[in-house]
Structures are given as C-alpha cells and as structure tokens.
C-alpha cells in the first residue's frame, strides 16, 4: 500500500538532484550542505499537503527548496561578503566524462554563482536548469517581466565575475 510517506520519499529520491544543486549554491561545506538538505526535506514534507498536483512536482520543489534556502541564509546572515572566489567551494559532482577541465570549470561556475546575492543565485540556478520564464516568475513570486529584467542583471553580473577570475 502506498502511503503519503512512501509517495513523498520516492518523489524526493527521484528529484533530489534539484535539492543538491540548491544546497551547493547556498553552502560552503559538506556539513552545511547536509544540514540544508535535511532542512529542505523537512520543509517539503511539512508543506507536501499543499502540493496540489496541478503543477509539476519539480516546480513545486524548486519553490519550497529555494524559499527554505533563502530564508535560512538570511537568518544566518550569510551575505556575499563571506564568500570568496579563492575559497574552495564544496563540490561533489563530476562530469560525465570525468574531464578534469570540465570539473574545474564547474567549480569556477559554482564559486562565481556564490558571489551573487541569494535571489540572483536562485534566478541563475533556475535559468541554468532550463525553466521557462513563466515558471521562474511563478517560483520566485515575481512577474514575468520583472523576472526577465532581474535575470539579465544577474547574468551580466555572473559574466563579469567569471571574466574577472578567468
């Protein structure tokens, strides 16, 4: 018999990559990554009843996970000033080809994203995840026009950071 818990754990197991990516852009250590992951899963579980099923599970997951991460970061007062491009970001992903150069570029990409503010990080993540602007706007609770304007600024800022540290 499929209970609410088994349904939920299966959905999280299948979509956990989303939460890992969010944890990676908001934390700097494996411990903080694990803590945030657990906190996000708890929040997703608490609000699971609010998931209507009329939207995609992943869209709902982005919204709750990003809200949790941003709220926690604000609470802990982890501002961009605490991140630095020189600091080794926590990174436990590998490219399909195990290509070292690709690994380095991914590291650089994560480190650069971490230098953006928390909302810009969310925007860039959703953009890289290939979400349409309509969904990005709905996830962040802003208008589509506003999402496009903010996204352009965030992309510009990211490009600048990456060029500066190339």
């Amino acid at each position, binding site marked *: 018999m499929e*209970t609410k*818990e*088994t349904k*939920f*754990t*299966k959905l*999280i*197991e299948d979509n*956990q*990559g989303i939460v*890992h*990516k969010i944890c990676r852009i908001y934390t700097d250590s494996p411990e903080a990554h694990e803590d945030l*992951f*657990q906190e996000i*899963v*708890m929040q997703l*579980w608490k609000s699971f009843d609010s998931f209507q099923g009329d939207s995609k599970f992943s869209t709902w997951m982005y919204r709750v996970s990003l809200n949790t991460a941003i709220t926690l970061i604000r609470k802990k007062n982890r501002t961009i000033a605490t991140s630095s491009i020189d600091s080794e970001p926590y990174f*436990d*992903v*590998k*490219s*399909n*080809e195990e290509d070292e150069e*690709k690994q380095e*570029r*991914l590291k650089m*990409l994560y480190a650069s994203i971490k230098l953006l503010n928390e909302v810009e990080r969310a925007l860039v993540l959703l*953009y*890289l*995840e*290939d979400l349409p602007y309509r969904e990005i706007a709905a996830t962040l609770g802003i208008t589509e026009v506003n999402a496009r304007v903010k996204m352009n600024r965030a*992309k510009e800022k990211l*490009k600048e950071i990456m060029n500066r540290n190339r």
Partner: protein
Amino acid sequence: MNDLKNNNSEETDELKSLWHSQKEVNSYDSEKIFKMIHRKSINSVQWLFIISLIELLLGLIITVLSYFSGDHYLMNSSVQLMGDENIEKLETFSNIGIIFSIALIGIIYYYYRKISSNSSVSTLIKNIIQFRRVVVTCLILIVLILLIMMFPIYFELGKNITIQNTMNHAGDVSLSAEELDSTSDTAGWILAGSATLVIAVFFFVYYFVIYGFFLRKLKKNQKELKEINS
C-alpha cells in the same frame, strides 16, 4: 550587434551544457529521506529527556540540600508536630529518593542514547517504544513512591496536630484518651487522604500537560513509522 547577441547566446548555451553535465555522486536513498522527515520523533525524545533530566536533577538538588540543612527546610513548629520518629522517616525517604533519582537518570539516559537517527527504521521504532515505556514507568514510579512515602508522614502530622490542638484547649473540651485517639486517627486519615489526593491531582495535571504533549506527539510519529514499516 548580432555578433554580440550570438556570442552571449553561445556562452549561455555553453554554461547550460556544463551545468547539465553534472552527475550526482552523493545521493540519499528512500530510507535516509524517510528518516529525515521523522527527525521530529528524535526531537520529541530529546525534549522528553531534557525535561525528565531537569526535573530529576532539581528534585535531587532540593533533597540533598534539605538533607544537609539539618531541618529539611521545615519550620520549628512543623518539626515539633512531626516528632523525631517522622523526621527520621523523612531522612530515610530522602536517602531513598536520592538513590532512586540517580538510578532513574541513568536508566532514562541509557534508553535515550539508544535512539539515533543513524539506526534503521525498525530499530528506531523499537527504541522509541522502549523510551516511551521507560519514561511512563518512571513517572508512575515517582508518583507512587512519593505517595507511599508521604502518606504515613501526613497521617502522623494530622494526628499530632489534633492531639496538640486538644491539649491546648483542654479547658474547653474534655476527651477521654480513647476518644482523643479515635479523633486524632480520623484527622490523620483526612489529612493523609487529602494530601494524597492533592499530590496525585497535581502530578496528573503536570505530567498530562508537559509529558502528555510530547508523548502524544511521539505516539503519533510512532504510528506513522509503524505504518510505513508494515
């Protein structure tokens, strides 16, 4: 202008392709995720443990201090009314209370330590059930022992108060020794009975509110865990 747009588009495409080349290496399985959502069970257990510990330690400290103070924080008039025999009884009960409290702290700590989020779901259920049982048994034991220990003391106290009262007003009322004995016995039973009732009601309300809250939460989580494991 078009070149610049094309360059930007190429760059972002490249970033997207790099982003999608990530492969998760540190994945959580269903059981781990399941445990994460049941962390609240562990939290309830922690609260129960902390409350039990504070309560037992507070009881222990008060008992030890009253023991060393010599007069058990009792007023002189109360000491006189209780009599030496009852004071001795109270000292013996204090000693028993100290040993009992230390033993309970040890037992509760032992069962608390057994509950870990790293254990399997079935072990977690088993340990939570055990912890609940231990806490409930300890609570019943504490109240029962307190009632058993205090009943004879209150009985004697009630008796002595009546005798003292009658002796003080000997001019007004003249009672035979038999009558005095029977009246003081009745007063003793009334005082001991009332005190027992007050203590029982107080502890029932106290434990029902404080422990009841966490125990009920724990029971609900335990039910959910059982449902999943079946």
